[in-house]
């Protein structure tokens, strides 16, 4: 046996995003259920969110975001050897999204599979993508986080309908610029299957349910150590981080973890304010927005941290494209 001759480091080459057209404000929701703009803002920090159209699927959104990332990378479809879609909201377990996304983007016969680690899915997928590049399994990888939570949330349940939303974000992962460069740091990850009841969709006829207080307690206490471990594994002190892009679950969770992290100079992603919680799409969406705004120079260290049902969690430091 042999391994590919030269094994490069991996990095994120480009970003892409798709935000569905329909903007749903807190006032829109207040017209449908017993809630208010003030109530929603103070509990979860969301002002508005995007809902996919009735005929807009997870795959449609993934194709839109993935196509933009691929175009931004300057690569052609023929350069991509692996397509990964992080999602937990496909309408059925099979076929998976990734082969369809690849096919619709004209990427011929790549490896293709979905990653389901719920809201932590993007960071799990990024670890898989980086491994594929660094082991020579793929030259370039298209990784998309795409979710249509509105298919799985009770539109009349004011505890979840105000939080969850739809969208897709994508990255192209490819070889680092130099052999020495590490553009995607080692992942710090884990799970707590004994807490499976905290967030779940019980069966195909059920809606998403979460134990708000238990999730909040877990997220605000258990995740900062994971974030610090990801920094340590990458050899980056929290003070050196240019940005912190956690899963956009709840603004209060984001702020609590950021406080504990001790990275006073890092920009903290707050895309949740007008994107809602888009599960595995939230990190690439937030990252894409930061890049678009010109908030981050190329090559800046950014800490990503995904967490969600399972319970699962994963974080890594990446360099911006």
């Amino acid at each position, binding site marked *: 046996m042999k391994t590919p001759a030269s094994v490069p480091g991996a990095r994120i080459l480009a970003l892409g995003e798709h935000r569905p057209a329909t903007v749903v404000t807190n006032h829109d929701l207040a017209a449908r259920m017993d809630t208010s703009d003030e109530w929603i803002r103070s*509990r979860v920090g969301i002002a508005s969110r995007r809902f996919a159209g009735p005929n807009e699927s997870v795959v449609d959104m993934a194709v839109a975001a993935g196509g933009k990332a691929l175009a931004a990378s300057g690569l052609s479809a023929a350069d991509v050897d692996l397509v990964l879609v992080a999602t937990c909201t496909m309408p059925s377990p099979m076929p998976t999204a990734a082969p369809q996304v690849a096919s619709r983007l004209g990427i011929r016969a790549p490896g293709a599979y979905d990653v389901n680690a719920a809201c932590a899915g993007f960071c799990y997928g990024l670890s898989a993508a980086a491994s594929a590049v660094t082991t020579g399994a793929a030259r370039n990888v298209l990784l998309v986080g795409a979710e249509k939570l509105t298919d799985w949330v009770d539109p009349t349940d004011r505890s979840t309908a105000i939080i969850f939303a739809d969208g897709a974000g994508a990255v192209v992962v490819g070889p680092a610029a130099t052999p020495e460069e590490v553009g995607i740091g080692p992942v710090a990850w884990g799970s707590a299957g004994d807490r499976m009841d905290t967030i779940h969709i019980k069966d195909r006829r059920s809606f998403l349910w979460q134990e*708000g*207080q238990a999730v909040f*307690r877990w997220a*605000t206490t258990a995740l900062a150590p994971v974030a610090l471990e990801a920094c340590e594994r990458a050899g980056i002190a929290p003070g050196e981080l240019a940005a912190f892009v956690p899963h956009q679950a709840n603004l209060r969770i984001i702020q*609590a973890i950021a406080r504990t992290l001790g990275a006073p100079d890092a920009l903290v992603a707050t895309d949740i304010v007008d994107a809602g919680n888009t599960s595995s799409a939230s990190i690439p969406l937030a990252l894409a927005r930061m890049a678009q705004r010109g908030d981050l120079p190329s090559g800046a260290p950014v800490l990503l941290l995904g967490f969600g049902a399972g319970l699962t969690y994963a974080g890594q430091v990446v360099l911006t494209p």
Partner: protein
Amino acid sequence: MANEEIRAGLAEILEEVAGVLPGDVSEEKSFTDDLDVDSLSMVEIALAAEERFGVKIPDDELANLRTIGDAVGFIEKAQAAA
């Protein structure tokens, strides 16, 4: 720890976490109805109280702590049991 001391500590936590004025904190006040503390702030208060008073306040117990008096009583008992 004396009852009075726990109440004073709790008042400090309430001010820090939820902006409740210390003068508003008295035994019969309900966290939710009188002091406008939401469910997530209750978790933050529980976490701060756990650290300050060296006790455990699980979520299912937290749900039963309706008033300041309930919380003070729970913490007192938990400390005595420790």
